Structure formats: structure tokens, C-alpha cells
């Protein structure tokens, strides 16, 4: 894992001091509301429905045990004893007090953490595959590149005030688990003809009001050019992106207006001047970053009584099946701790749970935890012999709901319970669905279904790329919900389509049930839900859902 050097630490400390000064000036009238807003947003501080919300960066989703303990301490001291993981691998605290925020940031800085650029119209936290470094299908470890991008984007003097927010995702594996095609820039690391590392660069993807899958503008960018090329893209966007209408200000609108080819050509022109400049990365530089992410010393694989336990205990076997993933290191698995227990808002985690996970990471693995953009926690590097013990511990902490990838593993934004932009609540809808579909056998039979929900078209819950998407809308001051079908993330990212008029909140579980009935009746053997929707089209689902008498 990356470790700050003295300069990294100083920059974060100086940012805390700067923000403390800005906050004090705001509280004493030296900065107006309008002046302070963009400044606080650049440090992840929103004013929410009930209280300010602070979004803490978890760079590319990696946390050390001591960092997780610090988050637990902050949750207890400054919040109400819990935090919330977002779909962008960050943590949000929903109940902080503005005057205390500088102190929280100072606490974070003691464990090499910060809230820099977790909001605002700037380059946001770079996200990646939660299984980086352990995935069997990995070609290039994306983490060193994420750290290189983190440093490049941190307090970049030219790009602090972009037209709108800017999100970069990096994938280095065959399966794209970082949703790269729905980011402003999606980088897919690959190997060139001579074995040289490079990136496929996709641009202009995104969700929100205008959901769109990104276009590849550069099939192979040799990795040494990464930063100069990013500078070129950002400069074109900074100069020419629309600033007259915030709903048309994302880079995707500019790319559309210029066409992807036109945009690519403009970037190439700009890049000609920057290419091979001082920000070009040499092999030594890359090695410097890569050395922070070398494989730990795995003990010899020892499965203990793992196989026997699985054979004896169906519940354990199911959990292994759903909530663990094999790694490329034989005998080790990544455990997915489900934050989707019925009755708990998706992504929420208590301070006690955080501390428990930190303990397990140290006891069973190498002291490191990942945040998945599906809002679950991942403990990599668990030896098969320890899985049964860990399963029991996870069960006691409410982390072992064996529902990863199933209908109830819902991605869900905080919605109207917390967020002041919301049209509708999302957490109670997620809970109603989890309660309706609580029969595990049925869920297993349905197989993989990604259900995503957002409380408004800002799409923090990624509803467009859920196989089933739910979007809260406002109808004359009442909360209604649209249903989308056919979205997917990954290599074949697709934007789901709204099936028709929206529904009242109470009827959502019924609507989902009808959709699932059609699937169960018409699926081919072993066909996944998404495949069935793609094969059948939305029509049969619509017919059932909107039928007058059924």
C-alpha cells in the first residue's frame, strides 16, 4: 500500500491548515456563503438536510486497518457512531458539525487520509477494481497508476475550477469491475505488442441526467505518456466545456458536441505540445510507485478442514459461494463483507463493525481492506483454513448475509432521508424490497441480478447501470419511482431504459415481483436475468407490470 513520504504528509497537513483558516473566516463573516461553498465543496463538505456531510476520500478504495480504526474513532467522536460507504469508494459522515470539520481533517491527516477533492468541480477520487492485486484475470495492477493519478490530480493548479466534476476510473483486468465506461475518463490498462504497458482511453461516459457510455478515443496510450495526455484532455475540457448551464457542463456534453473523433483530434493537437515533456514517466518512476504494491509474503497454502466444513454446512457453503472470490494466489480468497443486511441502509457501517474488520484484517490477512463500488467491504488474502472462523465472526457482526451479486445486494444512494437534492427516499424502498425477497432459496434460484437505486437523476446510486434500476422522481410534490431495465456495468456497459410510467412507493415490491415472475417463467436454463431481458426485450415485462387485471 502507498505510504506518504514527508512531502505527501506536509501537503495534506497544509491543506488542513488552509481549510481551518477558510472555515474560521466563514464563521466570522470574512467569507460569504457563496464564496465559502465552492471552497468547502473542494474539501468534501456539503450542507445536507439535517447537518453538514463530510465525504472522506478513500483513494482507489484501499484502507489500512489503522485507517479504518481512525474512521471508527471519527464516527464515534464527531458523528453518530456510523459512516456510509458510497458508490465511489468514499466514506461519508452524515452528522458532523461545521466548526469541528477542521479537527476531523486533522485527525484524518494523522493516518494519511484527507477529504481533498471529494466534491466540487475538480478531479475527484480515482476509483478502481476492488480486487486489484489479487484478481485472477488481472493484466496490470491498476493501483500504482491510481496513486500516480492521485498525486497528479491533487491540488492541480490549472484544474481546480473545471466546468463540472471530473471522475477517472482505472481497470487493469479482463473483466472491468471499475465501471470505466461510465466515467469522464475510463482507463483500461493493457499490454502492447512488445509487452509494454499502456492504456485504452475512453472518454465522456457518465450517468446523471444524460447517461451515456464512453467512447474510446485512444486505443493504446503508452503508459509513460499518461500524465501529459491527461493534462491535454483536462485542458481542452477546462477551456471549452460549457459553463453556462450546469446540466450541460460535464465533459460528455462537450464530446458529443465536438463528436468523439473531433474531441480526440483536439486532444491530440494539444498533446503534441505536452508529449515527452517533464511529466513523462520513466520506468524508474513507475517502479517507485509499483514497489508500494508488491505482493506480500503469502504463507504456504493450507486449506485445513475447509472442504469438509463446506460439505457439512450448507450455510457456510453458500456464504463461500456468494461472498468469497478465489484469488490468483492459490489457497487464498477475498471475502466480501455484505453491507446489505436487511434493515440497515445499504453501505452503512457502525464504528464497532469498522473496528472488527480492522482486527480481522490484521489477524487473518495483511492488514488491508478494500471498498467496492457496490458498497461492500472486501477483505483480501484470507487463507482458506481461516474462512470458517471468519465467517462466524462476520455473522456475529451482521456482515455475512450471503447475498453478494443477488437481488438484495442493492446499490443505493442515501436519498431523501439525508440528501437535500433528493426527489424521493431510497433507503426505505431498498428495505421493502429486501423484506419482500427474504427467501434465500428463491434469490439463489434467480441468480445474479444487480438492482441499483437513486433518489434523483444525479444517479449516485448508478440506477442506469443496474439490471433493474429504480429512480425517485417528484410528481406534484409526491415521491414516485421509475423502473429501468437492461442496464449493466463492466465491459458491456449498457444504460437501462425506463419501462413506462412511474409507480407509488408502496407498489415497488409488487412491481419487482412481477418482473421476476416473467423472468422465472421465460428464462432459458442457466440464463441470467440480464441475458433474458436482452433476449426478450422489455415488452413482456411491461405487459405484466402494467396489466390491468392480473
Amino acid at each position, binding site marked *: 500500500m502507498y505510504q506518504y*513520504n514527508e512531502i505527501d504528509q*506536509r*501537503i495534506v497537513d497544509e491543506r488542513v491548515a488552509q481549510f481551518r*483558516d477558510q472555515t474560521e473566516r466563514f464563521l466570522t463573516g470574512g467569507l460569504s456563503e457563496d464564496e465559502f461553498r*465552492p471552497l468547502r465543496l473542494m474539501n468534501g463538505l456539503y450542507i445536507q438536510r439535517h447537518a453538514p456531510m463530510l465525504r472522506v476520500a478513500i483513494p482507489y478504495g484501499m484502507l489500512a486497518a489503522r485507517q479504518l480504526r481512525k474512521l471508527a474513532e471519527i464516527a464515534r467522536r464527531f458523528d453518530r457512531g456510523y459512516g456510509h460507504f458510497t458508490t465511489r469508494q468514499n466514506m461519508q459522515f452524515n452528522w458532523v458539525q461545521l466548526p469541528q470539520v477542521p479537527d476531523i481533517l486533522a485527525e484524518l491527516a494523522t493516518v494519511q487520509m484527507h477529504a481533498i477533492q471529494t466534491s466540487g*468541480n475538480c478531479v475527484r477520487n480515482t476509483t478502481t477494481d476492488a480486487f486489484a492485486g489479487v484478481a485472477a484475470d488481472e493484466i496490470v495492477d491498476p493501483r500504482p497508476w491510481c496513486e500516480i493519478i492521485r498525486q497528479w490530480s491533487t491540488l492541480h493548479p490549472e484544474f481546480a475550477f473545471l466546468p463540472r466534476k471530473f471522475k477517472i476510473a482505472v481497470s487493469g483486468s479482463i473483466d472491468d469491475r471499475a465501471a470505466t465506461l461510465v466515467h469522464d475518463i475510463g482507463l483500461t490498462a493493457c499490454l502492447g505488442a512488445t509487452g509494454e504497458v499502456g492504456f485504452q482511453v475512453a472518454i465522456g461516459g457518465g450517468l446523471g441526467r444524460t447517461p451515456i457510455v464512453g467512447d474510446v478515443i485512444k486505443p493504446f496510450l503508452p503508459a509513460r505518456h499518461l500524465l501529459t495526455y491527461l493534462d491535454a484532455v483536462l485542458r481542452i475540457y477546462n*477551456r471549452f466545456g460549457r459553463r453556462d448551464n450546469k446540466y450541460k457542463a460535464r465533459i460528455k456534453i462537450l464530446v458529443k458536441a465536438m463528436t468523439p473523433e473531433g474531441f480526440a483530434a483536439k486532444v491530440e493537437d494539444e498533446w503534441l*505540445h505536452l508529449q515527452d515533456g*517533464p511529466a513523462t514517466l520513466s520506468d524508474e518512476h513507475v517502479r517507485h510507485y509499483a514497489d508500494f504494491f508488491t505482493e506480500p509474503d503469502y504463507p504456504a497454502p493450507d486449506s485445513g478442514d475447509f472442504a469438509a466444513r463446506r460439505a457439512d454446512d450448507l450455510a457456510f457453503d453458500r456464504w463461500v459461494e456468494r461472498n468469497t472470490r478465489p484469488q490468483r494466489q492459490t489457497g487464498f480468497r477475498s471475502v466480501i463483507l455484505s453491507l446489505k443486511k436487511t434493515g440497515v441502509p445499504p453501505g452503512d457501517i457502525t464504528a464497532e463493525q469498522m473496528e472488527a474488520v480492522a482486527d480481522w484484517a490484521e489477524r487473518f490477512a495483511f492488514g488491508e481492506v478494500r471498498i467496492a463500488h457496490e458498497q461492500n467491504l472486501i477483505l483480501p488474502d484470507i487463507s482458506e483454513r481461516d474462512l470458517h472462523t471468519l465467517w462466524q465472526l462476520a455473522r456475529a457482526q451482521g456482515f455475512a448475509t450471503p447475498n453478494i451479486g443477488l437481488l438484495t445486494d442493492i446499490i443505493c444512494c442515501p436519498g431523501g432521508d439525508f440528501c437535500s437534492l433528493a426527489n424521493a427516499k431510497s433507503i426505505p424502498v431498498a428495505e421493502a424490497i429486501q423484506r419482500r425477497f427474504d427467501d434465500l432459496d428463491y434469490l439463489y434460484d434467480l441468480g445474479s441480478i444487480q438492482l441499483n437505486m437513486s433518489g434523483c437523476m444525479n444517479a449516485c446510486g448508478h440506477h442506469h447501470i443496474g439490471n433493474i434500476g429504480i429512480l425517485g422522481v417528484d410528481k406534484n410534490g409526491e415521491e414516485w419511482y421509475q423502473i429501468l431495465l437492461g442496464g449493466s456495468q463492466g465491459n458491456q456497459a449498457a444504460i437501462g431504459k425506463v419501462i413506462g410510467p412511474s409507480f407509488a412507493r408502496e407498489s415497488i415490491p409488487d412491481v419487482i415481483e412481477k418482473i421476476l415472475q416473467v423472468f422465472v417463467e421465460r428464462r432459458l436454463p442457466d440464463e441470467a436475468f440480464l441475458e433474458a431481458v436482452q433476449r426478450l426485450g422489455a415488452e413482456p415485462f411491461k405487459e405484466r407490470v402494467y396489466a390491468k387485471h392480473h
Partner: protein
Amino acid sequence: MQNIIDQAGLRDDRWQLLRVEPGETLPEIAEDQDVIVPVTHWLADHARLGARQGRTAVWLAADGDPAVLQSTFNLLPLIAIDFPSFTDGRGYSSARLLRERYSYAGELRAIGDVWHDHLQALWLVGFDSFEIKSGKPLPQDIQAARPFSEHYQASFRQPWPLFRRCINHG
């Protein structure tokens, strides 16, 4: 202009900023007055403007293209870039282009919604004088407005990114 800060400190100076719309004509200018005129007026009339006893400079709007000034660089002692709002970041790119691509060596001034929180980033991309927005506290010393002692990126002031300076070669 008032409340100008640069390396030498805080002062008022002789420049008069003429904020005139592109279609409008310039007001009467005293022969010995130093003026900053809009780019369109400059390009249309730089022979006459430049021949006056007083000096002439230009200001570029946020969406202005710095490339158009290239042919008259040697006549321009100062270029100002306007920030209609501090959240409009286009001027940062314009400044880098002027300095790094077109090698403009005269004074580069940030005008508009400019105050001390942004001076350091503006300095890094190439500005060297700043008109502090009225009503804002006036830093006496430009060094005081530097919250960060280091930066990761390459910039006009520091062409070498941090990784090139601190990773040992060999």
C-alpha cells in the same frame, strides 16, 4: 488600478482598466494614460494605441483565446486575464498557454473575482500580478498567500513535477 499586489508588494498603479464591450468604442484616452483595453479593440487598432505616449496593454476575457495575441506580444508590456467568478477556471489554462506555449514574458495580471485564497495557484500557472477584489482583505506580501510549500504537478513556476525531483535515479 487599485489594490495591485505583485512581488514588490501592495500598491496602486498607473494602469487604467477599460472594460468595454466588443462592439462599443473606447472612451477618450489621455495621451499619457496607461490603459488596458479589450483584445478586440487592441487587435483592431494596435498601431494607433501603441503609438501613444502612455503604454497600452490588453485584457483577455475568460473565454478569450490567448493565441490571437501572439503576433503583438512584443508590443504588450502587460496582459490581464479576467475572472468573472473565481470558480471560472479557464484563465488558469490561458495563463499557462501564454507562458509555456507562447513564451510571453511580460507582466501577466489576474483581474476580476481574485482574492488571496487563489493567489498561489494563479502564481504557479504564470500570473505575477493580481488585482485584489475590493472588499477583500489585502495581503501585504505575496509570500503570505502561499498555503502550500510543495506541489505534485509541473507548472510554469516549477516545470519539473515532484516525482522527477524526489525519486532517486539509479
